[in-house]
């Protein structure tokens, strides 16, 4: 598995009258295949996840993926780290499903014909073949999220970071997307409010008040989170 290293990585942003700490300097090394991140809204868990592929740059410390500094070599890291957002609507930017997957493949396959064939093959792999020429706006929420994932997985990243990918989905689609994510061979970093999903991870970080409050095995971490919410 790849190694994601947070080396005193933290984030503060200027606000009126001072600075606000979004994430305290954090030091962790993630080598497990499935890493869950849970915590309350605004606790800093998405910031932690976004640092992995450079969507957010730390203001202190650094983040490395297999030893490569994300801040210095963002492009190289993003070729290895795929990112899936909560709302697929902001991630799907092409008019039809096959064209959106083709957009992901542009850097990897310059020949238009071969790129199209590869995109069709990717859609087939994720059960979207019959929607290849359908408008992305005509898909259901679950299909949109599957398509967004297909666009991420088309380029075969070594790590997939998913930021609350099931939050907007119904139960059936949550299961489809979760089964897809947990069936991946790649390393998965999953930010979620779904504690059942968190329990399926190998390791879970509980983020609270801009810091990692608990870091350990899934069941113990989820129980700790539940206890902290109850108290």
């Amino acid at each position, binding site marked *: 598995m790849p190694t994601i290293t947070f080396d005193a990585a933290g984030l503060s942003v200027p606000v009126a009258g001072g600075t606000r700490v979004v994430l305290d300097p954090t030091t962790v090394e993630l080598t497990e295949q499935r890493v869950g991140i849970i915590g309350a809204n605004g606790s800093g868990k998405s910031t932690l996840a976004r640092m992995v592929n450079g969507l957010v740059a730390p203001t202190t410390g650094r983040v490395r993926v297999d030893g490569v500094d994300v801040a210095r070599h963002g492009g190289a890291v993003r070729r290895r780290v795929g990112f899936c957002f909560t709302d697929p609507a902001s991630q799907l*930017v092409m008019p039809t499903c096959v064209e959106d997957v083709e957009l992901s493949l542009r850097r990897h396959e310059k020949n238009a014909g071969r790129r199209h064939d590869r995109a069709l093959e990717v859609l087939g792999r994720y059960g979207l073949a019959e929607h290849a020429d359908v408008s992305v706006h005509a898909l259901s929420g679950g299909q949109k999220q599957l398509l967004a994932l297909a666009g991420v997985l088309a380029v075969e990243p070594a790590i997939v970071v998913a930021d609350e990918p099931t939050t907007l989905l119904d139960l059936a689609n949550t299961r489809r997307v979760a089964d897809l994510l947990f069936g991946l061979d790649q390393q998965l970093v999953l930010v979620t409010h779904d504690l059942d999903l968190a329990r399926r991870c190998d390791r879970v970080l509980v983020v609270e008040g801009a810091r990692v409050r608990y870091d350990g095995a899934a069941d113990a971490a989820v129980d700790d989170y539940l206890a902290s919410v109850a108290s």
Partner: protein
Amino acid sequence: MSTTGLVGVYQPGTTLLHRLPVGAKLGGLMVLSLAIVLVRSMPWAWVFLAIALALALLARVRLGTLARAARTVLLLAVFVGALQWWWYGRDKAIETFVDLLALSIAAVVVSATTPVNAMLDSFIRWITPLRPIGVDPERVALTIGLAIQALPGTVALAVETRDAARARGVRHPRAFLAPFVVRVVARAHETGDALHARGIGDD
């Protein structure tokens, strides 16, 4: 309200228009658009509409796609036509209305017969000679493509924001405009993040 009718979604096919190079189609659209704008005559307005409809037939564009495009433009055309009627009279209003319809149908024919990625490839080819003076062809082409594709999403945001204002019983334009602008900017941010996350623009 359909949010995809403003631009035709690509419909695979093998018609002559599908097989034409992107440059020929965009060039043809530009010539037709200029002719529609510059030739101010009622008979010619009907001729241009007939040409646009003939192209749609030739490309076998689905009737539903054309109807959605026409419906969206009709809303705008009715407003513009009413203003024209008030300022210049009935004939001018009808001419403008027919011109807008012809323009929208011609645009839908091009987008329905041309995959966006093919358009991007063409834009990149055309812009590449400007690379020595610092122009990034991939980035410019993607910007143009995104600008076109952002339209349906922006209309969807407008409809959601309007419905939210109505649900709260607020009718003041500010109750619509302020959140709408904020949401459009937020969506632009999210799209930028998504493109960044996909590594698009890194090269």
